[in-house]
């Protein structure tokens, strides 16, 4: 889905999200967080990629060309910009690919070597291979049923990739289980790793403290940070999984 939103585009960073009012009246009540999937700076377009899950996303999916959308954003911290010429591994599970495409395009444009590892249930869920390669990224895919690429998961791809070559930075988005494994593989090899988390959200701007995730403070104590405003991207080592 492409939306004209020059104001958002001009400020958008990879890993940030939009908080979208779905439905005309009170149902659904709360906004829905959706990552910025890609942007087109020249045309002032922001792209979304989302899975229809419930009332909010199915309303969103039924928008017609020309409809207006009420979106807050860009929100959140976004991924740390990789240093130029560094080598980057992006690990995507399912719809977790959404924000990583923006990051891949951004980093590749910055001169980084970007390899994207995508795990999906089957071929139908494998999205955007072409777009990523166009942007200059290398892509490896795995499907659970083996219908495309490796039969296995994004974690299998990551294990393989790390054996082959290593990386300066790993960024991941996907199911929590995948993030946990990514974090531990990265830690084993001491590679800086960033993960994008999800939590139910109300305000989206850090006011309500509804979207917290448990983190380890520097002194080892445990505290809660907002996924919406302190995240959604966290250093993997900081998260109390």
């Amino acid at each position: 889905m492409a939306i004209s939103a020059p104001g958002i585009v001009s400020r958008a960073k990879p890993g940030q999200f939009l908080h979208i009012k779905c439905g005309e009246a009170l149902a659904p009540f709360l906004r829905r967080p959706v990552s910025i999937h890609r942007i087109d700076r020249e045309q002032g377009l922001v792209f979304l990629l989302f899975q229809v899950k419930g009332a909010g996303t199915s309303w969103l999916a039924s928008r017609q060309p020309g409809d207006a959308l009420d979106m807050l954003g860009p929100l959140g911290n976004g991924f740390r910009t990789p240093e130029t010429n560094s080598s980057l591994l992006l690990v995507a599970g399912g719809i977790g690919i959404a924000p990583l495409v923006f990051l891949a395009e951004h980093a590749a444009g910055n001169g980084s070597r970007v390899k994207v590892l995508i795990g999906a249930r089957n071929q139908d869920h494998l999205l955007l291979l072409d777009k990523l390669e166009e942007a200059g990224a290398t892509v490896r895919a795995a499907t659970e049923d083996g219908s495309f690429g490796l039969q296995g998961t994004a974690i299998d791809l990551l294990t393989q990739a790390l054996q082959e070559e290593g990386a300066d930075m790993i960024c991941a988005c996907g199911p929590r289980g995948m993030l946990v494994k990514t974090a531990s593989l990265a830690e084993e090899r001491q590679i800086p790793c960033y993960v994008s988390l999800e939590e139910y959200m109300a305000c989206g701007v850090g006011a309500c403290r509804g979207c917290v995730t448990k983190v380890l403070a520097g002194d080892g104590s445990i505290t809660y940070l907002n996924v919406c405003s302190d995240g959604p991207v966290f250093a993997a080592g900081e998260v109390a999984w």
Partner: protein
Amino acid sequence: MRPDLAVEIAGISMKNPVMDASGTFGFGTEYRPLMDISRLGALVTKSVTLEPVHGNPPPRIWETAGGMLNSIGLQNPGLKSFLANKLPLLQSFNLPVIVNIAGKKVEEYVQLAAAMEQAPGVAGLEVNISCPNVKEGGIAFGADPSSAEAVTKAVRAACSLPVIVKLSPNVTDITVIARAVAEAGASAISLINTLTGMAIDHEKRRPILGNVSGGLSGPAVKPVALYQVWRVCQAVRIPVIGMGGIMNAGDAIQFMLAGASAVAVGAANFVQPGVMLEIIDGIEDYLVRHRIPRVGQLVGALEIS
């Protein structure tokens, strides 16, 4: 001529009767990029406790039909950090700042009240005796008239600030609690806090909230809130700040007709940041349209035949 929107609640002068509901607007700064906060009648902080509170395990938020559950658990940086880091920024809005305080014991409320009295730029206190999301204190104080009275008396004695006591709707007869805190010296009453509720994931057969139960708010609770505000306004003479499900100016006016002198907006901020400004404008439009010169004339103007 433009109608007069100003109200005075317990000695706090506000340029209009609209403020945020505690806990839905953080400490003010979070919404600064999205709206002109200085247009509000007053700013109410998230509950502040003596020591920092980490709050409840996630998930803390769940959407329900016409509303939401939350189980934040009063997460806040505690008194010291509030005074050092939050209060100075709040003052920059040039608004009456109402600090919401919460404690596990009467003594904690007293210490908080005394500290706020010393702090510069606190216009008044809102005493939260109605949080359903903490194990000790919170709602326990608001559920029983004698403990509600004890907290109110102690806070009243500990400071000379206006004391607004925030009541829980989870009681058999809210007028009993309202009268108890009024007699104990409350300057005003605010209500409603959230209704206790829970949500279950039937596929996983588990509660959805990390804390199991949470507080229900939003338009789903508006009928309950209006009823309780109406009842309390008939039972006490001190001013009342009404809240619970206010989404627009019409809702706000309904609370004032039921007897509230001012209103607070909670969950609606999440749905539409800036909604409080639209509510202020909408109240003004209503007064113009109905040729009512002062907003105070709406207070309790419900006609019952």
